[in-house]
């Protein structure tokens, strides 16, 4: 009986081990002193903890620069798209222009169906024409735009469920629609807003394709591109590369540790609805 109970756990624990081993490997390797040590005992605890690898990587890989760029770009585009999506969702769902609303909703929905890389080249040419290639705008604009369909979708669904009485009471009190939005609806939508923000933040943080080709100035690069460049430059110093990986992944994991429910919910619900 116990054995029967144990079997699913055994299988699942084995799977979890497969899922986690690369992370364990990377952390251990990042603290090792040489490639030889990594080769001999991949999962062994490092003999001495070479914490200086982290300092070295920070400097050599200019992780500080890439990290800052990623944070600032992800944060601003996630915030911008969340707010814009909220405003649009509010307008479509609550304001009384039903036909226009429906039409806008459908248009925005189409965006969910276009695979990411189909627009890549055309967006590149567009960014070139706008003259913002190789600036942060080149990423900020597509990231914000790209996050809008999902944001509008999720926020519209949420806002639909807000009771009409609130609106009516606020209007009786003399609030304009903008005031209603800012003072009442927005605060109420906060949970959904946070979810949308996090999902967009993660999307921008992890994005590689556009970040790689739209920005070539090193000082403006984001983490994904920076890491690949680091890997290409320091091919043979594996400990250093692992340190770089830890730097890139740690913030995401930290975010996940605190907000896992929100993150899981946001990412999965979005996919289903879309």
């Amino acid at each position, binding site marked *: 009986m116990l054995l029967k109970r144990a079997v699913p756990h055994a299988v699942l624990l084995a799977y979890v081990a497969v899922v986690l081993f690369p992370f364990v490997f990377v952390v251990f390797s990042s603290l090792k002193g040489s490639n030889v040590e990594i080769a001999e005992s991949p999962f062994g605890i490092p003999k001495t903890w070479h914490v200086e690898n982290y300092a070295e990587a920070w400097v050599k890989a200019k992780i500080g620069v890439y990290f800052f760029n990623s944070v600032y770009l992800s944060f601003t585009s996630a915030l911008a798209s969340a707010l814009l999506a909220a405003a649009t969702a509010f307008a479509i769902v609550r304001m009384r222009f039903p036909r226009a609303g429906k039409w*806008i909703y459908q248009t925005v929905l189409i965006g969910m169906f276009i695979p990411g890389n189909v627009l890549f080249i*055309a967006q590149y040419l*567009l960014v070139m024409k706008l003259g913002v290639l190789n600036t942060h705008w080149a990423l900020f604009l597509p990231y914000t735009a790209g996050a809008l369909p999902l944001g509008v979708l999720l926020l519209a669904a949420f806002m639909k469920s807000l009771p009409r009485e609130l609106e009516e009471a606020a209007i009786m009190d003399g609030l304009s629609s903008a005031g209603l939005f800012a003072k009442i609806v927005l605060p109420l939508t906060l949970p959904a807003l946070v979810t949308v923000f996090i999902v967009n933040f993660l999307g921008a943080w992890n994005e590689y394709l556009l970040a790689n080709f739209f920005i070539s100035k090193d000082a403006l690069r984001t983490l994904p591109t920076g890491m690949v460049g680091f890997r290409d430059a320091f091919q043979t110093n594996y400990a250093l590369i692992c340190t770089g990986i830890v730097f890139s992944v740690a913030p995401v994991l930290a975010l996940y540790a605190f907000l896992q429910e929100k993150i899981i919910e946001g990412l999965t619900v979005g996919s289903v609805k879309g």
Partner: protein
Amino acid sequence: MKHPMRNPWIYTLFIAPTLLLYGLFFLWPMLSSSFYAFTDWNGLENYRFVGWSNFADAFGDPDFRRAIINNLIFIGFSVFVQIPLIVLFALLIASVKRLRGFYKTTVFVPSIVSTSVIGILWGFIYEPEIGPLNRLLALFGAGPIYWLAEPKWALPAVLITNAWQWMGFYIVLVLAAILAIPREIHEAAVVDGASGWQRALNITVPLILPIISVVVMLSIAGGMRVVDIVLVMTKGGPVGATEVMASYMVNEAMGVDPNYGFGTAIALIIFAFALVLTSIYQFTFGRRMQGGEF
């Protein structure tokens, strides 16, 4: 007096930026792609209209045909290998009482990490001389496999890495659906004497067919979208063994001698494939699995 909720100024203000950004970065690129695909623009000189020749060239190039097949392999692998495993693991997690939260949280982790970082990470794991995978093989006496350097191993290696990254995501998705099945149904079956497996096969799986259908569609879309992992791990090599349509497109359009006309043609081909495959699925199995309604 106009009702505040009918205020056209606010309405416009609230939707204009969104529509502007969206139009600029979604609709306009769709349109311009459709235009450039019929030219041979390389960014420098004036372009000429070349009709369908970009498309003809693409399909005529054996490397591109291989890329198409590789995309299909990705999709096939996702649907026929990953999905059964996903359902299995989801069922297992749903069947245990303890540690459920732990399992759910841990398997989901790889899907939130950047694909490019995962590419670097696994590139390291596959490293022929120092990587842990070959060290493991050495324990069993198997020779070092040059995972990413040999044409016959490179694609399986990338497929495995891709699976590792995304399976957790789908497992959690399916798990949510399984847990949403009303308990009474299972309890009734238990009363009727159904075993765990019988319940799983005859009750749970049929009831979660809609979500599995979603997973299939997402897998198709994902299989067409694959590009980051390939670019970072192998750049499409060796000798095109891991080239997918999107990486082919990127290499052609952004290489030393860019051909934007050709590149956008490929982008449209990718889009068309995605549409066609999804439609085929929808009209054959999709309808049945979803009960005819989406």
